[in-house]
């Protein structure tokens, strides 16, 4: 990095990519892969998610791993961020739930309310 301008240019480009604004209907999926998440089985959920996305040939979905968001008791956490800025935070996600999320939410466009953090956390 040679100047502040270079950095800012890089930042703006990165920001655009992260917001998924560059693809129509793009979805960013964040899987919590801190130690807490991994211990709760986030690795399995992540793998299943990738497999399912590939198997169903879904496009414009960007899956990434992130650190701990603080809700360690509710790991594994999978956060689906859609182009319109809506966040759906799924918690205690099992492989079976991944299948449902892919089918209902990613393919059908209907978030599964009962699996959301807001519904499970009372």
């Amino acid at each position, binding site marked *: *990095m*040679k*100047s*502040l301008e270079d*950095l*800012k240019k*890089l*930042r703006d*480009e*990165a*920001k655009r*990519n*992260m917001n998924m604004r560059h693809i129509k209907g793009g979805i960013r999926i*964040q899987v*919590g*892969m*801190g*130690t*807490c998440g*991994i211990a709760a089985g986030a690795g399995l959920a992540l793998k299943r998610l990738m497999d399912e996305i590939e198997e169903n040939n879904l496009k414009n979905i960007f899956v*990434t*791993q*992130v*650190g*701990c*968001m*603080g*809700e*360690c*008791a*509710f790991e594994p*956490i999978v*956060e689906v961020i859609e182009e*319109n*800025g*809506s*966040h*759906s935070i799924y918690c205690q996600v099992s492989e079976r739930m991944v299948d449902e999320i892919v089918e209902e939410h990613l393919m059908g466009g209907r*978030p599964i*309310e009962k699996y*959301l*953090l*807001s*519904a499970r*956390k*009372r």
Partner: protein
Amino acid sequence: MLENIHILICGGTECLGSKSKDIRFEFDRHLEKYGLLGEAKTVMTGCFGLCESGPVIVVYPDEVFYSHVQVGDVEEIVSEHILNGRPVERLRFKEPIDYKKIKNYSELKFYSKQKRIALRNCGSINPLDILEYIGRDGYLALGKVLTEMTPLEVIETMKASGLRGRGGGGFPTGLKWEFASKSIDDQKYVICNADEGDPGAFMDRAILEGDPHSVLEAMAICGYAIGSNQGYIYIRAEYPVAVERLRIAINQAKEYDLLGKNIFNSGFDFEIELRLGAGAFVCGEETALIASIEGERGMPRNKPPFPAVRGLWDHPTNVNNVETLANVPVVFLKGAKWFKSIGTAKSSGTKVFALGGKIQNTGLLEVPMGTTLREVIFDIGGGIPNKRKFKAVQTGGPSGGCITEESLDTPIDFDNLVQLGSMMGSGGMIVMDEDNCMVDVARFYLDFTVEESCGKCTPCREGTKRMLDILDRICEGKGTMDDLRILEKLGNMIKDTSLCGLGQTAPNPVLSTLKHFRSEYLAHVMDKVCPAGVCSNLTTFTVTDRCIGCTKCLKNCPVGAITGKVKEKHLINPDLCIRCGACKVSCPVNAITSKPVDWEGEQNV
């Protein structure tokens, strides 16, 4: 992204039903009208869970909740709040008295009471991709510092921010940097203390796993300020995920020339290397940590000379904790004044706490200094599970003390916690309920410090061991009143005479429980009873008249010591009972107790 105003409009089914779509359209129209489109944007979100108060609108970053918003209210919000920064009080969400009416009460509190500075990126960026960090204004602070500020200005900014060390002691970071910068030497070092040893604290790990670049950036800023070009991160090998992500982060930063030679064409070089520790608690003490990096046995030495004068390989060294460093870039991005405005007068900024123990929502949270313990435990943490009663919270891990119910409304900051006989420590918070025996808790922490004492100085090596012996005796029912007196005397002596922080704080759990829960100690010593039913030698479980005869305890007893019929009061045979407590846990009406009949210890003598 940080500067933008976000207007979140609930797009849940209920709110859509009350025209939240029209409200969004109206917002967009007025934002355009007032020329605010670059400043603010509207976002439709999922259900907030406050459906009865819908349509709900939240304005970030102020975190202002509006409820029952009508299309006609939109212009007022835009012109007053967005343009002039004055929230429209009339429409603000008021907490109803009946909390049950809110579907996700805990979650609302969870979001609204937190302020994430150190954890700003944790859980929302990919730690393996430097571009995502850069996309969140990463390395911008370093760029600004290197191209626009002198080292002296950097230190002045840090001092003005009022940031204090988050590792435990709470020493002002700016001052620490100043001391190191004033030492004259060709070679100086920056060390990041990532030896998180406090059982029950995991915020450093979360930061390193979730946002490693923020620590690297801060270390480079510190290096520039004090005149160092070499940094070390001392991290325990027990954190393999964090180690791996740090390695990747360092390599990526080098690829982008954000570490290495001539960063930002400023002539400033900075390298960072990892040093793995074996996980000794004492190595969190800075002089022991430095000894460990040098390849010596991890043992503390006398201070002064402080590391800022003579540290790693006898060169001036600045040691900062992970969480402290994670705050640094934000101080430079948003300004010292902004940082100073958060928190209390003497403790600015936020603190990350790791909530554990008997708490509904185990996890990490970050709140402004000055938040009360009650808010942290009951509002954000969701309170105690299984309808049990709150008893105490242990802050600061094995070096801290217990805080009881009556002190729950104290605003948390460094000085207040010390006044309560505890300390901030790294920010671990273990919540205890009525089923925890405080003597046993004290014994647990002391057992830890006995194991972790390095053995260099006698008070810590021998004294803590003797204290543990006494506690063991008390838990077995062989304690005497003399033991309590000796415990206190020995504890204070160890505090006064130990070499390093480990020994100086090791008696804290015992001394604070002795002070706040003396009645429990007395019950163990005089009545030979453990009121909480933990110390098995001193426990007799009995069934009270509250029993509804559901037979759950009977089915759960592993040794068949319980007899009784459906809808009749059950009976425990003390000769068969092994004091495992399975019956107490399974009882739906809390009818099984280990407390003596006339126990009044809850009043905390």
